[in-house]
């Protein structure tokens, strides 16, 4: 298929064997690339038994038909595996330019299998592919590792992804960082990479990507770029970054406060993207390939206790290290975010674990003895930073918190399960289902656990329309009907975006019709909006089936009870989602059985017949 290279690089770390394989054309047509292609391969290749750190768990890096040229926001790369944190499906993508380089090196995907006996990195320069000794960067923080890697490999136009000390030590919330700051944050992929002793991947590509008609392609790119530029949300993100949404949080109640208990916090006045623009912001961060939005921020703190230079905190970091911990010191939040990037750790899970620990401390479940004398009180900035270091170094209480709140609550007991805020073991992102009801079924059913990106509801709940899927009017955020429907259509669309693959922030401006047009221009296959929804649904259901094989059922599609009780004060006080009805609507639309399996009819309709015997015998 045009727009794709049709090649996969298979790297076996145990034997050192590197092979280049052809990807079946029907895989590309039916799953595109990114998370879709990953699901098609990993469903077959990751065995259902065994531990997440067994050598037969694999890492799958993949791009899609829109990468490798100048399509807006197409520097992204997807990473999939079985999650060390949750034990189920994981995908996580990061922006930057890794995806651009990988595609231009001539590969749609890399599959990493086995385990290396010693630290290595994977060097890719077009056709030259080698495993090289990584002992000179093993043990180093991310920015130092990247600096030294580039020094050894040379080309500044290249890209890399690496793990930090957290991944090396197999901290289960350890992640993979693209270049120095773009995190494939969720689910512990860094720990899996660390268990395989793969420190980094360096990639440089110089080949062009073929499309059927350059003229049509360029015209399509120009039209879609113009739409993104005109969109008012793109403009707000460009002006103030994702942290802009913290400025509206006092009205929407979207950002959780004090481990999801309160509804009101004065700190939002100081902790938001507008406040950041007036204080520590230096410029837009220029790292994302072909992006007209430029949501990323570059900040500098020259004085005081939190000196740093680099990527500024995004919305999620402002939430987990700000409102969740009652910390209104923006500089310290920037520093906490910086530390997570340096260790290579997921910001959402790390901050959520710290907020959980603060509540456990307040309730006497954790004591000064457990924390090595650290007063883990709400708003204690030094305690937050100390906990990040402990988690990254895997020492003291950090050993437990680095395994996520589900495990921490299992170990601590004493009622801490009540305030361990996760779905299927993945800590919940900073969007409250009591503010936007659509997040309820979205979190409960996302294939990787609580996830706002597998169904970027924020772009639609109370804001947008998607006529191609039957959403003709913006839904009231607290509507009692339609949220199961909303969750489904947005999840399916996001699955296509992540298979194509482009940044979720284009969701505000790039419609399914636009995306179908772009995919047609890239591949020469005639896609329309209905067809791409079907691809999204196929990918989503295959990931569901992957999880069903690991024992996941409808009993796992739940939210923590705290989210289904009112906040104390704030705009949504007294308002909770009608979760059971939402899920009923969702299951009916998905055509899932009561036990949580996709029905045989649905699997057949989506061309997933090969799954039927696995789920139904």
């Amino acid at each position, binding site marked *: 298929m045009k727009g794709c290279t049709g090649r996969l690089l298979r790297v076996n770390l145990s034997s050192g064997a590197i092979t280049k394989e052809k990807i079946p054309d029907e895989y590309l047509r039916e799953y595109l690339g990114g998370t879709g292609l990953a699901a098609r391969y990993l469903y077959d290749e990751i065995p259902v038994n065994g531990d997440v750190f067994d050598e037969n768990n694999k890492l799958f890096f993949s791009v899609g038909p829109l990468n490798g040229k100048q399509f807006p926001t197409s520097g992204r790369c997807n990473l999939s595996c079985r999650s060390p944190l949750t034990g189920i499906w994981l995908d996580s993508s990061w922006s930057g330019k890794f995806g651009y380089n990988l595609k231009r090196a001539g590969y749609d995907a890399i599959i990493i299998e086995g385990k290396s006996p010693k630290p290595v990195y994977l060097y890719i320069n077009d056709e030259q592919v080698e495993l090289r000794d990584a002992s000179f960067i093993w043990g180093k923080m991310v920015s130092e590792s990247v600096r030294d890697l580039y020094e050894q490999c040379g080309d500044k136009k290249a890209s890399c992804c690496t793990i930090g000390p957290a991944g090396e030590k197999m901290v289960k919330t350890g992640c993979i960082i693209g270049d120095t700051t773009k995190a494939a944050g969720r689910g512990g992929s860094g720990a899996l990479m660390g268990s395989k002793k793969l420190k980094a991947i360096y990639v440089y590509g110089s080949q062009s990507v073929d499309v059927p008609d350059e003229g049509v392609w360029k015209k399509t790119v120009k039209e879609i770029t113009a739409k993104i530029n005109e969109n008012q949300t793109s403009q707000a993100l460009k002006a*103030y970054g*994702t942290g802009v949404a913290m400025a*509206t949080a*006092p*009205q929407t109640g979207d950002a959780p406060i004090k481990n999801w208990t309160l509804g009101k916090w004065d700190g939002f006045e100081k902790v938001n993207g507008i406040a950041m623009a007036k204080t520590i912001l230096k410029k837009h961060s220029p790292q994302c390939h072909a992006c007209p939005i430029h949501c990323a921020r570059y900040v500098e703190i020259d004085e005081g206790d939190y000196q740093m230079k680099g990527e500024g905190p*995004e919305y999620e970091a402002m939430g987990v290290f700000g409102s969740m911990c009652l910390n209104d010191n923006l500089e310290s939040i920037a520093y906490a975010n910086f530390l997570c990037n340096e260790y290579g750790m997921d910001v959402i899970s790390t901050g959520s674990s710290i907020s959980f620990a603060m509540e456990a401390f307040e309730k006497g479940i954790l004591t000064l003895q457990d924390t090595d004398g650290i007063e883990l009180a709400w708003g204690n900035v030094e305690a937050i930073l100390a906990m990040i270091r402990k988690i990254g170094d895997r020492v003291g209480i950090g050993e437990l918190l680095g395994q996520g709140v589900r495990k921490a609550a299992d170990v601590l007991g004493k009622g801490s399960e009540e305030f361990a805020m996760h779905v299927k073991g993945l800590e919940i992102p900073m969007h409250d289902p009591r503010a936007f009801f659509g997040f309820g079924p979205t979190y409960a059913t996302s294939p990787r656990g609580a996830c706002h990106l597998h169904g970027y509801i924020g772009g639609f709940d109370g*804001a947008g329309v998607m006529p191609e899927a039957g959403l003709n009017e913006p839904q009231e955020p607290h509507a009692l009907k339609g949220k199961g429907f909303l969750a489904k259509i947005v999840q399916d669309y996001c699955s296509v975006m992540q298979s194509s693959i482009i940044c979720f922030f284009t969701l505000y401006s790039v419609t399914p019709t636009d995306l179908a047009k772009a995919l047609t221009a890239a591949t020469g296959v005639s896609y329309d909006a209905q067809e791409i929804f079907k691809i999204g649904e196929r990918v989503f259901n295959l990931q569901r089936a992957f999880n069903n094989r690991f024992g996941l059922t409808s009993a796992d599609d739940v939210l923590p009870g705290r989210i289904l009780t009112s906040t104390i004060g704030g705009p949504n006080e007294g308002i909770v989602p009608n979760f059971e009805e939402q899920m009923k609507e969702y299951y009916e639309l998905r055509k899932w059985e009561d036990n949580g399996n996709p029905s045989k009819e649905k699997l057949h309709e989506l061309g997933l017949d090969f799954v039927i015997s696995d789920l139904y015998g």
Partner: protein
Amino acid sequence: MLLVIYMAKIKVRLYGLIPAKFVVKDIDIYKPFNLKKLEKEIISKYGDVIHKDYISDRGLLNHQLVRIGDSSGRRLDYEDDISGIEEIWFIVSISGG
């Protein structure tokens, strides 16, 4: 005869209605006033820069997309008495990352 005109000063936050702008303004408005009158005042002042999606056919703000609340986050609509309120937020929903 002494004519007394009552003026109120109300702090208005317009967050996201003007593309890429998050502005806080004090608006002077004659008493008595209600939300409709306040919106008309806002549109007379900023209507040329507020994005067209956020203005309804009736020349008011489009409540399907614009959320209105007092400083405690309580949502407001036309039927609410806003005479004693000193600060009103008008926001459009923008989701963070």
